[in-house]
């Protein structure tokens, strides 16, 4: 056992720093015991208690620094002492600079950031309504991404927001663009003169992307959440959204997007359309053309038509727009490649509205169209894990996610289902969407490619042509790069649709037999 004692005269350190250094010194390898302390009576008493007090230390003054290291060998004590010296010279690594201030609550953030004007809330549904209420109380507009919020809470929040003149987008609102800033899931689109109020997220995204493609631009995209047009909620946010866009000088044309609303709500919304001084394009999937026209609205049967009508109403010359007409020679070519028993379409979607749109287009031609989101119970899949005839799956629906990440973020579930469908000899076409933009996967095509290559090879081995139809939803401004994503698919032998509408039409036409 060896003890090294060093006394540094007139060297002051405060006791807490020294205790901290002592603690670190005792962690040095080989140290039996280390004491770093000022030579006060109290500290000498401590040394005495642990049997380390020597006459030399006893003589130390309270202004002297005492360093005592006890180790198994003299060598170890010496090397430990060198490391202790380093502890004194080492500067703290805390040079983080002005770190970001952290706020724990909406109340405190709103109080400290007077320019804050919007809250985006994506916490667990059990806590979401409370946070949304706090935001509204602080005069913040709200985008409530969370789902699993009760309808009672939704109504209360929307009524409160309505009284305060605030936006209450959601619950379950995934898409909005406010002042050119995409919130949560959204695409990079040009600024322009078209305002959108959408109750369906990917439907709104698709219309905004198509408007951009047709040369138009967006003022605002207001999301309402999927239940806004239900009987209970009564379209509070959509009606306030229409009014806000009407009052917005930059907005020349308004587009409304929703799944079919409850009848009474459709009536209310269309009454608002009728009063609106600006042209309103209405795309209610599978909607009622007559009622829309009677209200003075512009009816659109598809997302593409909604976008086209909007840009024309906003002043574009229709003749100069590339409308991306269906490629009929391609359709003939694919029909010829498919065997007679390859009768069915299987659609595997990340985007709920994209699924809905393609499914409605299929239902115009075929009776046996099944889905997990079919309204008609006869055609709603009993077992979602097994496809039947034409099957269109919204894989972002709760049936599939059930607590797991959305397929836009985690593609594993869709990859497995794709491989399963690819083996089915009755399948002619598999249709998939790839969603680009803010909030989405960084390379949605890339993660699917190995499965596509594998499926193609297996079908070829079985002597079948498997038609894979892809739709990449995004603009030339989006990340990841649109052209690169499309090229990867084409290189793997995937046929590319230019829009959600065309994707639905192509899929259905590919499997029409004997035309």
């Amino acid at each position: 056992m060896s003890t090294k004692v060093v006394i540094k005269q007139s060297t002051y350190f405060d006791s807490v720093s020294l205790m901290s250094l002592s603690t670190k010194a005792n962690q040095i390898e080989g140290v039996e015991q280390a004491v770093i302390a000022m030579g006060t009576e109290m500290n000498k008493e401590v040394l005495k208690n642990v049997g380390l007090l020597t006459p030399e230390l006893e003589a130390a003054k309270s202004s002297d620094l005492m360093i005592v290291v006890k180790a198994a060998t003299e060598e170890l004590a010496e090397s430990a002492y060198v490391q202790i010296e380093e502890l004194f010279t080492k500067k703290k690594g805390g040079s983080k600079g002005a770190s970001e201030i952290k706020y724990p609550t909406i109340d405190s953030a709103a109080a400290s950031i007077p320019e804050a004007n919007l809250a985006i809330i994506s916490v667990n549904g059990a806590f979401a309504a409370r946070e949304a209420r706090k935001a509204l109380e602080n005069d913040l507009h709200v985008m409530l991404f969370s789902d699993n919020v009760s309808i009672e809470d939704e109504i209360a929040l929307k009524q409160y927001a309505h009284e305060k003149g605030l936006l209450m987008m959601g619950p379950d609102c995934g898409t909005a663009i406010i002042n050119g800033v995409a919130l949560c899931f959204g695409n990079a689109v040009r600024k322009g003169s078209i305002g959108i109020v959408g109750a369906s997220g990917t439907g709104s995204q698709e219309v905004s992307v198509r408007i951009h493609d047709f040369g138009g631009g967006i003022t605002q995209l207001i999301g309402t959440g999927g239940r806004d047009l239900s009987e209970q909620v009564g379209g509070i946010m959509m009606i306030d959204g229409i009014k806000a866009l009407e009052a917005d000088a930059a907005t020349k044309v308004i587009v409304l997007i929703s799944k079919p609303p409850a009848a009474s709500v459709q009536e209310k919304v269309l009454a608002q359309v009728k009063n609106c001084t600006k042209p309103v394009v209405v795309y209610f999937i599978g909607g009622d053309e007559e009622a829309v026209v009677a209200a003075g609205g512009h009816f659109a049967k598809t997302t593409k038509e909604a976008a086209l009508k909007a840009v024309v109403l906003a002043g574009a010359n229709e003749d100069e727009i590339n409308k991306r007409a269906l490629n009929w020679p391609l359709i003939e070519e694919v029909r010829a490649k498919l065997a007679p028993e390859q009768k069915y379409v299987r659609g595997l979607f990340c985007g709920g509205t994209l699924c809905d749109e393609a499914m409605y287009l299929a239902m115009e031609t075929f009776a046996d169209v099944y889905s997990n989101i079919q309204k008609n119970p006869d055609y709603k899949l009993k077992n979602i894990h097994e496809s039947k005839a034409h099957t269109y799956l919204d894989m972002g629906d709760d049936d599939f996610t059930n607590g797991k990440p959305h397929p836009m973020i985690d593609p594993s579930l869709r990859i497995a289902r794709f491989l399963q469908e690819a083996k089915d000899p009755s399948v002619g076409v598999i249709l998939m969407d790839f969603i680009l933009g803010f909030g989405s996967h960084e390379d949605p095509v890339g993660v699917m490619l190995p499965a596509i290559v594998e499926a193609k090879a297996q079908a070829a081995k079985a002597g079948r042509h498997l038609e894979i139809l892809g739709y990449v939803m995004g603009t030339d401004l989006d990340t990841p790069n649109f052209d690169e994503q499309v090229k990867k698919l084409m290189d793997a032998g995937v046929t590319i649709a230019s829009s959600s509408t065309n994707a639905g039409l192509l899929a259905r036409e590919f499997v029409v037999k004997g035309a």
Partner: protein
Amino acid sequence: MNMSKINELFAGNIHAINVGIEFFKDDIIKQNANATHLEWKPPGGGKPELIRALDRLENAALADKIAAANKLAVERIINSQPMLVGFDQAINVVPGMTKTTILHAGPPITWDKMCGAMKGAVTGAIVFEGLAKDIEEAEQVAASGAITFSPCHEHNCVGSMAGVTSASMFMHVVKNKTYGNVAYTNMSEQMAKILRMGANDESVITRLNWMRDVLGPMLRDAMKIAGEIDLRLMLAQALHMGDECHNRNNAGTSLLIQALTPHILQTDFTTEQKREVFEFVASSDYFSGPTWMALCKCALDAAHGIENSTIVTTMARNGVEFGIRVSGMAGNTWFTGPAQKVIGPMFAGYKPEDSGLDIGDSAITETYGIGGFAMAAAPAIVALVGGTVEEAIGFSTTMKEITTAENPNVTIPLLDFQGVATGIDIRQVIQTGILPVINTAIAHKDAGIGMIGAGITYPPMEAFEKALLALTESIS
């Protein structure tokens, strides 16, 4: 409907507050707009009954009542002007004190449940009071039922560490000039091997005897000459001189002895005795530590018992349990949870497993807004909280998230002279999941040893949860 707010949003720049998925903030910043991501936790740890309680208390009518009550409570804390007016023996001044009463720190506890340090202090005090001839006999006396044990806090007192206070000990007498109430605490024993840390050998008893026979009477006589000393003013100065007045008392001790010295000199004691007293004071910076505790107790007692108030008026630990009292529950309603470990640097020769759990009434300083809450005032001791000044500032600013006001009388230079965070609101503790931070000493877990380190600790959330649920029942 007033459309202008939505159209204002359309016309202005986006500044979003993001709660939940963090990359939504990153995407907004990529688009050259502003976003602030919250460090959010589910309120009440996600417990439904606590969220319901918060929701209930946020009902507009109740919230207004609570806000008014809390405003009053915090005003009383801030406006209190505690003055040191004397020193005297506990038996002469402390309400309810008897020759066989022993006061202790924290919420109520019986002898059999006390931790090692408190048992050590109790038996030492029994010997000191002449109720037993030695420690062994003192243990029998303590267990016999002959001693009345009671929390300091229930007698207008506070006691540091074990807080053991007996009849003949000299007490600070601190009077609230604004509201008239009086608070008491005994005197620092300096050093490490002392009664309050659980030590009880002959050196400890000898020192206590000297404090009773020389130090106490001398300070009593000095204060008779001095009249009164404004402690709040002195506290404010000490913070400006680098103390946080719980674990660092260098400046405060200098100020206090400087104020006492002319009066000490005028007392009838011998020069030798006066020299002993000055040497004793100089032997440890902690001399004024109890003084600030009495100041805090005096101010917080003035804010206790205000109907519908959710402000914490007491945080105290007995080494086994941590207890809080809330203004809106008048009297001695304690809400408790297990005392926690104290994490921090230790004296040479001791390891974390030697530590006793959090103990003492000294968390009254944090309840008032100093100590851990004022770490930014004391850069010299940032080693306690991780080692950087930035971290120390972080502690002081974070505490503003759970308090309702800043005390303009007690300010922190490094924070541009902002007042210390004052008035802990149990609703905000439950809402944010942020617990009050406490700077404190570490006593050895066994009786008879003493102080072995210092560090930081937190109360158990459980105490605040119980308080919130009880208040939700009582507020209407």
